[in-house]
């Protein structure tokens, strides 16, 4: 019986994140538009876009190979699996021990690896520029992310997200310098990983500064829908990650009454909305960077995260 409810809750999480991801994207767009005194698209517009894209034919470039057609499914599956393993409303889900935080980051790395390959498949210069810049950004964002994981894992004594989140919710945490540094670094990495302003602009086309959009330029129809959905899922993943590590309040423990689960779900939706709002405010208040400013921005994240880890090595009280 316990296995069945556990399984049901794991599936509920998978469906919840899948349904919420486009909503978060729509919400951020809406808030940004309101901040710019525009009406903005309706909140549900991303769902409509996805459905319309799914119904359309795929137009493949003449030179596109089988890999190009497989990659959208692969990227979507990898991102979905990764986000299903992050505690949202409940920690210690059925499969939470499948992958710890390092492995979750690496699964996202697989998705990026293949997406970068897709950019090079059609043999256009736009795809190449996107892939080339994406791997440059990744080559700094990934080590920064790993150092953030190290810093938090050394405090929590675990790389298992459920354990980490439970620890961060306990009284043992306290205010620590290294946690503050790690949070700043995590925000920088999250902004870069999700191709948000100031690193990249998710709303642009036909601009030489675009990275992610240039890479997926040749995709159309259902393939594009999957890639857009994967991008939304990835944004939700990073927001959930920040929520479960730095705002772990309300997450229901592994064995809990249904009311606690409902509280957890409500708290989760509240946290996501708050963080989405902050993201929109941040994006509207800052200008897009030149591409070669990005390494400095991410280098700062890497240094902060390294400093946080180093502090943990030097003294247990930081």
């Amino acid at each position, binding site marked *: 019986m316990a296995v069945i409810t556990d399984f049901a809750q794991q599936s509920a999480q998978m469906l919840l994140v899948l349904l919420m991801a486009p909503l978060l994207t729509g919400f951020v767009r809406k808030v940004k538009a309101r901040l710019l005194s525009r009406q903005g698209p309706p909140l549900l517009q991303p769902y409509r876009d996805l459905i319309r894209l799914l119904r359309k*034919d795929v137009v493949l470039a003449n030179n596109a190979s089988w890999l190009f057609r497989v990659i959208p499914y692969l990227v979507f599956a990898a991102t979905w699996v990764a986000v299903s393993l992050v505690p949202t409303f409940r920690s210690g889900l059925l499969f939470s021990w499948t992958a710890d935080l390092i492995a979750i980051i690496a699964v996202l*790395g697989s998705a990026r690896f293949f997406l970068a*390959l897709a950019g*090079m498949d059609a*043999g256009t210069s736009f795809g190449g520029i996107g892939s080339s810049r994406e791997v440059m950004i990744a080559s700094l964002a990934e080590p920064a992310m790993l150092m953030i994981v*190290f810093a938090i894992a050394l405090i929590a004594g675990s790389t298992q997200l459920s354990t980490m989140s439970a620890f961060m919710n306990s009284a043992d945490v306290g205010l620590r310098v290294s946690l503050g540094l790690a949070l700043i670094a995590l925000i920088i990495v999250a902004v870069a990983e999700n191709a948000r302003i100031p690193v990249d602009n998710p709303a642009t086309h036909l601009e030489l500064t675009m990275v992610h959009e240039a890479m997926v*330029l040749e995709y159309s129809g259902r393939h594009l829908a999957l890639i857009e959905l994967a991008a939304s899922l990835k944004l939700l993943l990073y927001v959930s990650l920040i929520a479960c590590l730095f705002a772990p309040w309300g997450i229901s423990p592994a064995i809990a009454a249904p009311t606690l689960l409902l509280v957890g779900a409500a708290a989760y939706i509240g946290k996501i909305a708050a963080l989405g709002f902050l993201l929109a405010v941040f994006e509207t208040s800052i200008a897009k960077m030149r591409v070669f400013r990005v*390494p400095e921005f991410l280098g700062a994240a890497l240094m902060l995260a390294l400093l946080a880890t180093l502090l943990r090595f030097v003294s247990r009280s930081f």
Partner: protein
Amino acid sequence: MISYALFGVLALVAIAPIAVALSASPNAISVVYGACLIVTLILFLLALETLFSHPAASTVTLPLGLPWLGAHFRIDPLSAFFLVTVNLGGAAASLFALGYGRHEEAPQRVLPFFPVYLAAMNLVVLADDAFTFLVSWEFMSLSSWALVIANHRVQENMRAGYVYLLMASFGTLTLLLAFGLLGGGDGAYAFDAIRAAHPEIGTAALVLILALIGAGSKAGLVPLHAWLPLAHPAAPSHVSALMSGVMTKVAVYGFIRITFDLLGSPQWWWSLVVLGVGGVTAVMGVLYALMQSDLKRVLAYSTIENIGLIFASLGLALAFKAYGMDAAAALALTAALLHVFNHALFKSLLFFGAGSVRAATGTRDMEQLGGLIHRMPQTAFVFLVGCTAISALPPLNGFVSEWLSFQAILLSPQLPSWGLKLMVPAVGALLALSAALAGACFVRAFGITFLGRPRSSAAETAQETDTNSLAAMYALAAACLIAGVLPGLFIDTLAPVVQQLTGGRLPVQTGAEWMSIVPIAESRSSYTGMLVFAFMFITGMITAFAIHRLASDKIRRGPAWGCGYPDASPLTQYSASSFAQPIRRVFGSLVFRAREIGEMPPPGSSAPAKLTVQVRDLIWDALYAPIATAVGFIAVRLNYLQFLTIRSYLTLVFAALVILLMVLATWP
């Protein structure tokens, strides 16, 4: 057990004269590589059996070599593990060569040396005294040198062979000194005697440094790596695979044997040196790899990166061992050994792929390739598996060893020494950086070679490679996947080796649910390769099925969109060097002093614009160039001695004799 292994080695040596006798025959290739395949497979199974049943070490002494010493051979868990790696790589290379060998321009220059080379690598791992070890080591160097210059009409290969020979001699010299110090004045060169005698701290430190230089120069540690990216690509591809995938591992074996087994208990600061060198090697190797456009050279530099990773884990294991933290030392050593095995798998696979590309198109230059996924779909698929594995991406095997290394790093704040407290996080950051850069490097290697549009007519008309080559590559790709989804099996197999060297071991993994691996405790960290693979596969399949059934499954073909700019020429694609440009600008401006000089023609002129990229190899400039200059300078001065009269020579000989006698007389 050991006698069977020695018979196997003897059989390999015996293939060499057969190869010479058969060299004119058209069947020579099938006979020689077929025989090598059978013998290495038998040796592989034998070693595997030893590793699984782990009986007590079996030894044998033959009346060869030094008269008072004899030749000692021994098989224990450590050598059994390396025998598995060597012979698995050897069997795969032989199978690949059954097909690839036919593209060889001068097979008679390769055939006799190939089995000898395999035999030598086996002997190094089996040797149980310093003399046999060094002779086998030199045997291995010389036979591989002969294979490097197999295609000797190419000037570049001769230079590679020359640099290789110099560095190999230098490495053997330092190992000779290391063993001399270990053996002491009495000449106790058997490993048992060395193990029993505990060297003093100062001597042990000197031996460690000498072993690090000797084994490290063979393995390709920065800054002793200069020969590796020259020699490995110069050899025929199946030999390149052996050199990169297997011989560097034999060098790692030499280092482990000396530091973990023969030297006794380590000092904490040893690990500082090994960690530092490992971390720097990892990042430098992959940065060099990103600057190359020769596919095989990219792979050779990536070997340097992986060796750095292995040495960093070894350094960590030394640190834990020095402080008596056996479980942590076992974790770090398992990570290193698992990466040894994994790297042998995927690096061999990638070199085979590069060899197939070379055979199909006649070039290794990525700027001439492209679009091969259409012409060589199967090679492209297995090469992609190799690229994914080496980029440490789940669910393949490269990630498992990387993950274990990171878990070991997370245990290290418990180390009491301050030097290590500062060093380990820095090395952790270097490893994380090298992992991310490796991903970039292999997106580039695969993307430029196999994706996009063909950049030359050779790439446009390439043909899929033969079945033997494909069989070897598929076997290795399958092994990469199995080692990735069932890592627990491999970790448990390594347990006796780790136990032998550190005294500790990881918890038994094979009993865990769903084959997950749990290095310390489940609440701390766990990873289940099989479930990650299954989830990704199942969700991907369900998504594809659902979308095709419920939404649309129609496909139309059209010209690429490219924002509406038609680019007819494949030359407008991103090339290997333009792909690396952002990374060259971010990292290379510091590490390689990379400069870009753009020359624009004046307005109105129809002259072409020019972009020149300068990349300097600072290590070569700072270390090797001055030595080469000094040697050249001294040689010119000494040249004068060649043109003396007979009387002057006699005077010189007499003077030397007198001086030596005087030194001897005044010697205390």
